[in-house]
């Protein structure tokens, strides 16, 4: 059970959160202008790194805010959390 630091509420149990997949995958400005392949890339393709991954979480059983986290997928360590709209922090 991870302890995830909600940028608003502080550290809470993982069970209070919903996972939202890779962060910074914006909804395309004009989906109609995309080819089928480009649209499929937006819909279905996500990174799956071993190591630090920028991903989205929602504190669904708490403040219901979406936020981003930099989590090491190999160790589960969360290096940083940041609010929607904030830039991805630089971590060593």
């Amino acid at each position, binding site marked *: *059970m*991870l*302890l995830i630091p909600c940028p608003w509420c502080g*550290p809470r149990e993982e069970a209070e959160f*919903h996972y*939202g997949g890779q962060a910074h995958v*914006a*909804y395309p400005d*004009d*989906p*109609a202008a*995309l080819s*089928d392949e480009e*649209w*499929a890339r*937006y*819909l*279905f393709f996500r990174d799956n790194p071993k190591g630090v991954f920028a991903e*989205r979480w*929602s504190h*669904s059983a708490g403040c*219901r*805010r*979406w936020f981003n986290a930099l989590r090491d997928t190999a*160790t*589960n*360590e969360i290096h940083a959390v940041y609010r*929607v*709209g904030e830039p991805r922090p630089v971590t060593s």
Partner: protein
Amino acid sequence: MRRASGGRIDRSRTLRFTFDGHEYTGHPGDTLASALLAAGVRRVATSVKLGRPRGVFSAGSEEPSAVVQIEAPFPEPMLPATTVELYDGLAASSLPGRGRLAAEPDPARYDAVHAHCDVLVVGAGPAGLAAARAAAAGGARVILADERPEPGGSLLGTGESVDGLPGAAWAAATVAELAELPDVTVLPRTTVFGYYDDNYLIAVERRTNHLGAAAPAHVSRERVWRIRARRVVLATGAHERPIAFAGNDLPGVMLAGAARAYAHRYGVLPGRRAVVFTAHDSAYAAALDLAEAGVEVAAVVDVRGGTRDAGGARPAPGAEWAARARARGIELLAGHVVTGAHGDGEVSSVTVAARDDVPGERPAGAGGRSFEADLLLVSGGWNPVVHLFSQSGGTLRHDDALGTLVPDASRQAVEVAGAARGVLTLAGCLADGTGAGARATSGAAARVPEAAAEPEPAGEPYWVVPAADHSAHFVDLQRDVTVADLRRAVGAGLRSVEHVKRYTTAGTAHDQGKTSGLLASAVVAEALGVPVAELGVTTFRAPYLPVAFATLAGRDRGALHDPVRVTALHEWHVAAGALFENVGQWKRPWYYPRPGEDMEAAVLRECRAAREGVAAMDASTLGKIDVVGADAGEFLDRLYTNLMSTLKVGAVRYGVMCRPDGMVFDDGTVVRLADDHFLVTTTTGNAAAVLDWMEEWLQTEWPSLRVHCTSVTEQWATVALVGPRSREVLAGLAPGLAVGADDFPFMTWREAEVAGIPARVCRISFSGELAYEINVTSWDGLRLWTSIMDLGVVTPYGTETMHVLRAEKGYPIVGQDIDGTVTPQDLGMAWVVSKKKPDFVGKRSHARADTARPDRKQLVGLLPEDPGLLLPEGAHLVAADVLPEPPVPMLGHVTSSYRSAALGRTFALALVKGGHGRIGERLYAPVGGTLAPVTVTSHVLYDPEGARRDG
């Protein structure tokens, strides 16, 4: 044999127990193992594979051998006799390897609790007590957990003193002091069995097991502790490790430290005449203590030293320890090994040979000696208990001097103290623990409890006594795995300890190889010709000890197994004898059988009432979301496939939401309450998901939209009033409301007083009949419903009837006919997809080649040619009345299937490949071994013209 005095037992009280049907006695403070040894019972189990007799091997939870069945007061399989506290009336029996589960339900309570602390100390031996003491002195919130009933750890089994007090007394006094502090929790009989991310540890506290039949029913028998600790100090001690030699599984072969513990802690001598076989100095202390207690120690056989290599590479026994043994008159055979333990069912003699005389160097038996002995004590040195540290993500390091793995580094806030990191003197453990406890809190130096200085014990890593045949050199006593088995596995080509483990089952038993794991690795490493350090050991996984499923389930059983949601009308439904259906966590009335009715009869009656008269359903479970703000219309336009911004205040519109992949996600109605205020309803199961969905888009993609969403699902109770007579019923209840079809048209809503209660009435229908949904605050829900039912003309109906009515109209249900792979077009609902909007979530996907395929599965109706045949939901559909060779091409499957009162026959909905082009075709459904012919129809089977919705 019980000593005349001594031990941590209460000799003033006698406890009766039975083992294998024989009656014995013991004392409070005994374990089943100590009481059996006191009674001279040596054979306590039979091995699982070979049927060999087995005895007590250890004095703790690492026991690999003395695993017993508890028969009374409550049957429990496979408990180590070394951990079963004796109580009056205990009945146990020996096991042939495997236990038996109880057939009767367990009447005991089990529960769980969350706990938080600055420092969790695991283990109340000298290092753990010192750590807890130092941490508490710094003002920290401390939890101290120890698996034994009494604190002290090794102090209970060695007779050493601390701060001038006997070890056990010092431990008791320290714990008493700690327990006085408000923020210190001392948990005896508590095993921390799992170490997870972010210093989350799970422990099991055995609270009333030791009371037997006297356990109070209102106190949980076992409790799971879920502990979140800022820092953790692991003072988990060390397990003595065995040496493999022929016959090393006979009862009477025992770890040296265990025998010492039986003498000190329980006042029990596990034998009369002992041979001590060791590769480590610590066994000398055991030999000396046992000799002092009255055991005749025939010889100490030490693999180290000896004539041939004396002064050479082979280390010698510790000089101080050797001198003490000799001074006590104990014969010391340095450079010797035990070549065999012999006896009929238990040890009666031990053969010994000079180490350089064993096979491989000289013919077997040359120069050997034989000792009469009923006890053979073994010590290969000590393995730190690194299980929890390893589970924390910690790495282990091979310490060549100790010949074992010790903790190295962990990314978590954890420190290891005492024997758990290879510190083997009492004074060393006390200092180590004190330092760890202080560092875990303020960092302020704390006084180190004092203990007599002893020489640092040392040893030589030594694993297997060579022999011509290793088939009786046991490594895993519980799985009957021998040195020969492990070598055979290597011979078969296995190179990894994990593979050898799975091939031989070594380490997979109840004890998970606590005493045998490193020995097994050493044997495999030797066979492979690599160092143990390089080969490593198998992964340490939770749970450290077996934990009963009942304990893990705790109170999450029966009615409390999962949260149950009920509406404000629930009490009425229960009183009316409704049967309930689970919809998500909701309990919804399924149908209301009258006396003598089965489900079929009840549902047909309820359907008839709704189609021909008037009926009512509790629709409160539908999700409801208030969407408020200047951009609310624009927001809904982006999420729904159809236009919502054009909806007039006072009107209601049905809508469908898709995921970006174009598949239907949810559906429901949208009510426009004001220019900037909509009320959205969702399906029962998706209420939370839809709100999350809205928040996700608002927060992450469209933060500039001026919209707020608030769940009001339980603010409102909703009653669906359905049927051609619903208008007259509503008119009677709401005299102030103009209910005429022109005054109150379809898909509009009105504020009104219904049964004297302020209500919002929507004219919408999920059945095709004239219908209303009446919303009142949930506080008033029961009042409203009772007022309706008290009229005596309205039939209550449940979800089954609702399903039949909607299916007759071809309305699909999200989660039943809609499974995340169908588009609105697949459902025959292209009309709900706006062509005008530039974009909405899912629109782009509706133009993908895949969503335009003509052979997509589409929603159709099915009429079985036998009008009485009810197709099973999930039944597949095939093209011909004879099945071809597999693979059989599947055309689709049945999603909904009912008996229809209105149609006078059965019918079904199905998703069928290219279904919209197959209307009128005959397909076949495999049902009970035959292929039943069905005719494909439109999915709308009842009142396709919509003539009935105005009553």
